[in-house]
């Protein structure tokens, strides 16, 4: 396999987001600075009898505003529709032409790729549950399959079924952007889009691509998604106070808040960015991936895998724990994650563990699952731009066992040059990316 003659530096030249705190990057950032919450009662479907009746939804959004060819995306899933908006914003910021047949933006389309961490689309609920009901013989407790088949064939729609596939968000981004370069989509649960950005960065470093659309898109706010997480007791059930339910690192935290959205970064080789003369927002310098190899249901008790991913990212960046100014934590607001993540940070950051600010914007944004890492990475880039560390909101009753500086409730103005972004997936897949202020 070939390698680039020189290791390419990889920089961020465009960002876009569609999320519960706003449908563009600056709105998201204003909300985070102001400590606003994107969490509210569920409106996408009637969840009033579920154990959890609230979530973090994208509001007032229509992908058609972002493209001159909405017909290319007819029938797409919520997650894919978010991806279209996020990608269009990122492309615009990065000066990538999505309109002209022969774009004059200086990018070879075969060297412009896509790497998303993206999840499945919602089932066609009526048809899906309908075909189960039709086939289920309650008396004999068995399925009469031909009945299920008949109803499914009758009621399911080809497009709706196809759009559920997790690779479809990337497909829509390809149709939107004309990208012909490296294309992958991954789904490492809650770590997916951090992994996507990390691996996309590796493809540019190796010389396989000049420009990548890297990020994530996901919506698990559908009946079976909510059911699955509720049954795992992973979600907060603070139904009487949705806005304060996401409380990472708080003693009274009781689970994460299911969110949805998409976040996209245009990342490219420094050579390409210079050649095109576009603004560089930050440089991606490190990526580390690990697996817990512990248990399906639990994180490694001492945070072995999480710590290993952090160390791998530091080594990849040629940095040490002493260089990090801010940690954007995974911080989900579950008892387990926040405890284990704290242990892992202590292991890696040693004597500095309590000095490095470590906050969780999931306190405001909720948990965008596959899209979480990329959305959070965008806030890391802005933290560097504005020398401002976003807060962990709702941190009203600190957990005595968790003793890091979680930046409680108020943002903090301070020099921010190098940021570590952490994402850990169910099942034990861990990914960490390090982003740094760009210096020519």
């Amino acid at each position: 396999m070939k390698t680039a003659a020189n290791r390419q530096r990889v920089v961020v030249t465009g960002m876009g987001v569609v999320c519960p705190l706003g449908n563009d990057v600056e709105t998201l950032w204003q909300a985070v600075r102001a400590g606003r919450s994107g969490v509210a009662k569920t409106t996408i479907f009637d969840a009033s009898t579920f154990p959890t009746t609230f979530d973090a939804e994208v509001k007032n959004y229509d992908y058609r505003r972002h493209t001159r060819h909405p017909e290319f995306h007819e029938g797409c899933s919520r997650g894919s529709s978010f991806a279209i908006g996020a990608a269009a914003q990122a492309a615009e910021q990065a000066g990538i032409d999505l309109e002209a047949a022969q774009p004059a933006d200086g990018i070879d389309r075969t060297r412009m790729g896509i790497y998303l961490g993206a999840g499945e689309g919602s089932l066609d609920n009526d048809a899906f549950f309908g075909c189960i009901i039709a086939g289920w013989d309650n008396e004999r407790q068995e399925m009469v399959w031909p009945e299920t088949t008949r109803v499914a064939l009758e009621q399911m729609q080809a497009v709706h079924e196809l759009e559920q596939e997790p690779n479809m968000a990337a497909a829509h981004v390809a149709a939107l952007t004309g990208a012909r370069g490296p294309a992958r989509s991954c789904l490492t649960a809650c770590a997916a889009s951090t992994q996507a950005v990390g691996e996309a960065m590796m493809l540019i470093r190796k010389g396989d691509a000049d420009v990548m659309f890297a990020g994530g898109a996901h919506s698990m706010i559908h009946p079976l998604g909510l059911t699955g997480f509720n049954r795992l007791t992973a979600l907060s059930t603070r139904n009487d106070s949705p806005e304060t339910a996401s409380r990472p690192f708080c003693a009274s935290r009781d689970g994460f808040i299911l969110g949805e959205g998409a976040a996209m970064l245009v990342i490219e080789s420094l050579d390409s960015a210079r050649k095109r003369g576009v603004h560089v927002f930050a440089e991606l310098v490190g990526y580390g991936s690990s697996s817990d190899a512990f248990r399906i249901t639990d994180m490694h008790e001492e945070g072995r895998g999480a710590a290993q991913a952090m160390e791998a990212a530091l080594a990849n960046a040629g940095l040490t724990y002493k260089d990090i100014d801010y940690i954007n934590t995974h911080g989900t607001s579950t008892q387990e994650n926040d405890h284990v993540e704290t242990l892992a940070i202590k292991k890696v950051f040693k004597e500095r563990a309590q000095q490095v600010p470590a906050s969780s914007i999931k306190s405001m944004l909720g948990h965008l699952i596959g899209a979480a890492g990329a959305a959070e990475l965008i806030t890391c880039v802005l933290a560097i731009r504005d020398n401002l560390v976003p807060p962990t909101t709702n941190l009203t009753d600190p957990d005595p066992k968790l003793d890091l500086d979680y930046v409680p409730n108020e943002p903090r103005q301070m020099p921010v040059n190098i940021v570590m972004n952490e994402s850990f997936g169910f099942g034990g897949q861990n990914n960490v990316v390090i982003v740094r202020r760009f210096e020519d």
Partner: protein
Amino acid sequence: MGAARVVVTGLGAVSPLGLSAEEMWTGLCAGRCGIGRLRAFDPAGFPCELAGEVPEYRIRDYLPKSHRKAAKLMCRDIELAIMAAQDAVVHSGLRTKAVDPDNVNVDPTRMAVNFGAGMISCDLMELAPAVAAAVVDGKFDLRQWGSQGLPLVTPLWLLKYLPNMLACHVGIIHDIQGPSNTITCAEASGHLAVGEAAQVIARGNADIALAGAAEAKVNAIMMVRQCLLKRIATGCSDPESACRPFDADATGSIFGEGAGVVVLESLENARRRGATILAELVGVGHSHNVHAVYEKLEPDGKGLQIAIEKALDDAEIGPENLGLIVPHGTGIPDDDRAEAAALQAALGGAAKTVPTWPTKSMLSTTGAASGALDLVAAVRAIHEATIPPAKNFAGAADGCRLNVLTEKRVGPIPYALCCSYTHGGQTAALVVKHFDDGGPAD
């Protein structure tokens, strides 16, 4: 710094032709067809009642004691992945925690895992009692579901169906602590996962990787999807002749289940432990369709063509060096034609002369697993210097002028090309080289 060379040292497969890579190879050589009448459920009502199902197995036989309790967290896709991974690890001679816990010869932190997975469809039977409790006036009622149905769903239900769990279970069983990923690009997943794992080793982030893919498409909803997307063969009752890649009489594909895994290793690591090297992975290419008709490969195969060209470029060879092509070849006429167009555009005249060996007539289309199974077959073909005969190819379909061999051919294969693509449009190609022992490890 040069990149590490990456070699294949183990093959694992679970397929309609058997529960090991060995059985698959024997079956392929004999031109045996793994397709039959669907057994997992009553297929009456489907326009085609055929499927490629793996033989019966007991998952307990594949699980170390420490992981047996987790069996209840496994959907079929996960089980198949675990079985193929076990097959590959044993074949490679690696002694992981699962194989020989007292004599482990690997560093868990230097091992990676990368699995392709499909969109896993849940077991309808398992959900049915809960759904039945949510019926009001003969219809599913969401409020009733929240209060009466939802509590009947088994608590860990979701964990059975998350696609990343294939890699997670395999990682736990073999104690793999290094980089881990799950590629979800449907039928392109296998090649994309293996390609990425090879790059992880090449760039020095791991010495060994288990890479591959698994999927079980033999599920009522999955089959319905294939019907609605018009991908399934029609008017055929004879399993032997149903799936006909690139053939003039093809009408669609037959769907099935399986898992394929390769053990990838840096050449240095393989040499150090004296492993048998089966082949070298030298080229990875991928690209995308740009085509808003997502259920089909674009008619000129451009996205696949680019992937093939990139893989050859990565391998630093020309089309004339190829001794074997294992195409995606599903038997879906439009897609086969587009794939042939891609091969012709990327390879020029070589597309008509290089032996081409589609396998799905025997293995069926196993979703994410299909590319991984094809790679296992290609590596074995290189190692044995044998190309088994293709099946169900009587005459080329229009536009499919490829050199599909219907007779076994014996002779050295310097390089093999495997390619795949999926609805939605991701495309992938890998180039595998006959390993000749020589040269530096990077």
